[in-house]
């Protein structure tokens, strides 16, 4: 929801150490301040923050009997390792299996268009807001920016009604239980923040570049695709990662618009349902939770700097 860089460091510097460029005196001063007690306290916090996830991870590889017999911290005492939980939740066709493989595919099928579509639409709008002049432009831009204050919840009920009633004769344009409702809903909710963030970046592109292209006779479409988009790749990447994680991790939009069928529901929805109905099946829930977490964790550890940059730029929505 916040919308402008929260800290001056944004974009110029990542959160990593920069001790190398510090003068030696400052370094010595800093080192003395980092007392042993503080380090120990920090390590304790880090451990407390990591243990819950680690416990789940370890449990997901323990056989069902072991999980139900004792806690995962006994794993070394009776060491057994299995992939059965994963094969059970992912691929087994058994009637007891949660069939998460299918829902995993659904998540992918939802998240790819729901990331790309708003990215394109928002860049187009951002380009206009940054580089054209027309009456009422600033007012319109502020209005779109202000839309960020509307919580998702304000739109859900009427939007669902609208989707259901959108028919040509008997033909439903957006049938419930299709991905289309989810794609469009995610696109709409992404737009205000996306337009704002991308505008901030696109407006920084030097005017001479665009002017030069115009002189050469390039039209707006050409300028947009050949100049604006390539030059905006860092901002586009940051926002795309953000939107990707948001959609992948979403539960509310999925619950409202997926129609609850296994044909389109994403993995988060399936897991939430399993937690409610089969909360005691820890061998399935632990493995299932990890299946759902693997994609965001890969994105997170692989592209952490972009993700952090997006956060620092105020990339929060909903």
């Amino acid at each position, binding site marked *: 929801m916040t919308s402008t860089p929260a800290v001056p460091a944004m974009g110029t510097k990542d959160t990593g150490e920069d001790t190398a460029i510090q003068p030696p005196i400052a370094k010595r001063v800093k080192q003395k301040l980092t007392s042993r007690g503080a380090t120990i306290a920090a390590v304790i916090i880090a451990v407390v923050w990591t243990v819950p996830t680690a416990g789940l991870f370890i449990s997901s590889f323990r056989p069902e009997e072991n999980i139900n017999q004792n806690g995962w911290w006994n794993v070394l005492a009776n060491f057994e390792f299995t992939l059965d939980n994963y094969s059970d939740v992912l691929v087994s066709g058994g009637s007891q299996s949660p069939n998460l493989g299918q829902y995993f595919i659904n998540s992918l099928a939802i998240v790819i268009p729901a990331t790309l579509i708003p990215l394109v639409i928002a860049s187009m709008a951002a380009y206009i807001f940054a580089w054209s002049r027309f009456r009422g432009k600033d007012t319109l831009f502020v209005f*779109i920016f202000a839309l960020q204050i509307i919580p998702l919840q304000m739109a859900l009920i009427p939007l669902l009604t609208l989707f259901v009633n959108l028919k040509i004769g008997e033909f439903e344009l957006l049938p419930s239980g299709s991905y289309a409702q989810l794609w469009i809903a995610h696109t709409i909710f992404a737009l205000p923040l996306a337009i704002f963030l991308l505008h901030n970046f696109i407006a920084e592109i030097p005017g001479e570049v665009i002017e030069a292209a115009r002189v050469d006779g390039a039209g707006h479409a050409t300028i947009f695709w050949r100049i604006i988009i390539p030059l905006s790749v860092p901002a586009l990447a940051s926002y795309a990662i953000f939107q990707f994680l948001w959609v992948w991790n979403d539960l*509310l939009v999925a619950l409202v618009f997926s129609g609850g069928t296994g044909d389109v529901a994403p993995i988060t929805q399936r897991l939430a349902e399993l937690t409610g109905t089969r909360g005691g099946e*820890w061998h399935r829930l632990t493995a299932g939770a990890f299946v759902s977490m693997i994609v965001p964790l890969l994105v997170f550890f692989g592209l952490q700097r972009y993700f952090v940059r997006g956060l620092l730029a105020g990339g929060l929505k909903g």
Partner: protein
Amino acid sequence: MEDLGEKFLQVVIAMAIFAAVIGIIMLLVDRAPKSFRDKATIIGFLAPAAILLIIGMVWPALQTTFLAFTDRDGNINGIDNFIWMFTEPTALVTLRNTVLWVILVPTISTIIGLVYAVFIDKAHGERVLKALVFMPMAISMVGAGIIWNFMYAYRGAEQEQIGLVNQILVWFGSEPRQFLLEAPGNTFFLIAVMVWIQVGFAMVILSAAIKGIPADIVEASRLDGATAWQQFWSITIPSIRGALVVVVTTITIITLKVFDIVRTMTAGNYDTSVIANEMYTQAFRANEPGRGAALALILFLMVLPVVIYNARVLKKQKEIR
């Protein structure tokens, strides 16, 4: 898995249709008569976003506002939904819980995040220490809910515990507890999950702000003989005040809308519901769209001042710079 191909095809078709629409817009814009070209570009480039936002956000928000004053059959019933909200005992519990969440999550998350950011600043392995605490931000709240359901798992006292929190209780000689079933304590155990997620966010923002404090100020105070404690209060805190406000307000906004954690862990039962969850339950489960809309409206009114304040602070910060 046999429908994999079909799903893949759906995605490809959708993207093709989308590409075609965008392609037509680009073509029309470029082929428009010269005198009209700039105008055509503005209309063509803004239209997709404008149409989607008007149909999907502005209009629905207005409709929700209207719905809040209707009953389940769509008849106008004045402020009945709001009377229900502020008199019905279960609805009052929902409001009370929301207030608890909004007070506790931002405060505790910011304090722990700040302490951690200060402690690990320039420490060995700072990157790793940061990633460990930040990681819960990346996973879904549903995943976090399952992780903590497992932490809180309960077995009778005669059995071995499989949940770590109960095991720790047992190690210290007390009885295992049903953390998520016993009100009012259960709300606090749900809040702990949200804190676990948000500390990472607070830490990352505050850590970046701390690194932005000019080294010569820190050095000067050091030469003046300030202790680490004095330095923290008279240098660090004043220098990062803006970032602190941003962190607190942002977490407040996220917390007001918290849904997934409550939905996954208790579904709002056992007196743990919050506004966002109750809104979903009333509108989409209990067939009470009027009450759902009224809750959404209250949520909007609660978020509004925080967002405006947040935007103001950010603007001021920008001007100072």
